[in-house]
């Protein structure tokens, strides 16, 4: 298990999108997207796998900061991005395809968000 790479790279919001484009051209596939609430905002982790290696890119958007959707580059991201947007309230813009009513059918809005 130790033979395979698994690292977490923190980066700023401006570095993020070019890094995603780079991952795609390098042949990494999207493994998972995870949102976590931290004080004053969110922590978004995007994990990618190539063969058996795994790299996680991490950004920390503020509470009202917009994050660009990566669905233009990784179309399959829509379901996990919707999850982050609908359950946590992360402001992800331009998710494609755009299911206007959302994928999650729940009564409560952004239930996973930490409420003060």
């Amino acid at each position, binding site marked *: 298990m130790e033979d395979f790479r698994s690292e977490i790279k923190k980066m700023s919001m401006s570095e993020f999108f070019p890094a995603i484009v780079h991952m795609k051209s390098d042949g990494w596939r999207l493994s998972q997207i995870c949102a976590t609430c931290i004080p004053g905002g969110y922590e978004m982790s995007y994990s990618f796998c190539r063969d058996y290696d795994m790299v996680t890119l991490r950004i920390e958007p503020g509470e009202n900061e917009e994050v660009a959707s990566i669905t233009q580059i990784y179309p399959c991201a829509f379901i996990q991005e919707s999850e982050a947007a609908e359950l946590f309230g992360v402001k992800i813009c331009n998710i494609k395809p755009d299911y206007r009513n959302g994928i999650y059918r729940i009564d*409560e809005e952004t*239930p996973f968000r930490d409420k003060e």
Partner: protein
Amino acid sequence: MGKISKSPWLLHYDASSCNGCDIEVLDCLTPKYDIERFGIINTGDPFQADIFLITGGVNSQTADVVKQIYSQMPEPKVVVAVGICACTGGVFKDCYNIKGGIDTVIPVDVYVPGCAARPESIIDGVVKALAVLDKKHADMESKERKQGLWKTSEVK
């Protein structure tokens, strides 16, 4: 034994359970437990069902579906809550999206415990439900007779 309880038809719905009880319900219908030998058939159509087997706690989405299926079933009907989540909410009780047991939405006649409920106890629950079904059927008939909806001599 009444006419319906000799060959009751089951309807199964998963109202947000973990799947464990659902596959055990299906297990009852397959060769090892095989409740078809008692004349019990699984149906997908609420309009044809007599017994409603329901698993899992109810959440905001399934509450309406459960009510709708229940209202589509013809009288007399019996509801069996399978598994501890269907009875009380079980391990999921504290989840923000879970309302609690099935009885928060529709009346339940038989409660089957277990996490996941074993096929033996599900069969037990169904057999208990048959007695309830018979009683409901008899009550309905005598009520209809009293109201004079049918004349006994003509039926026999």
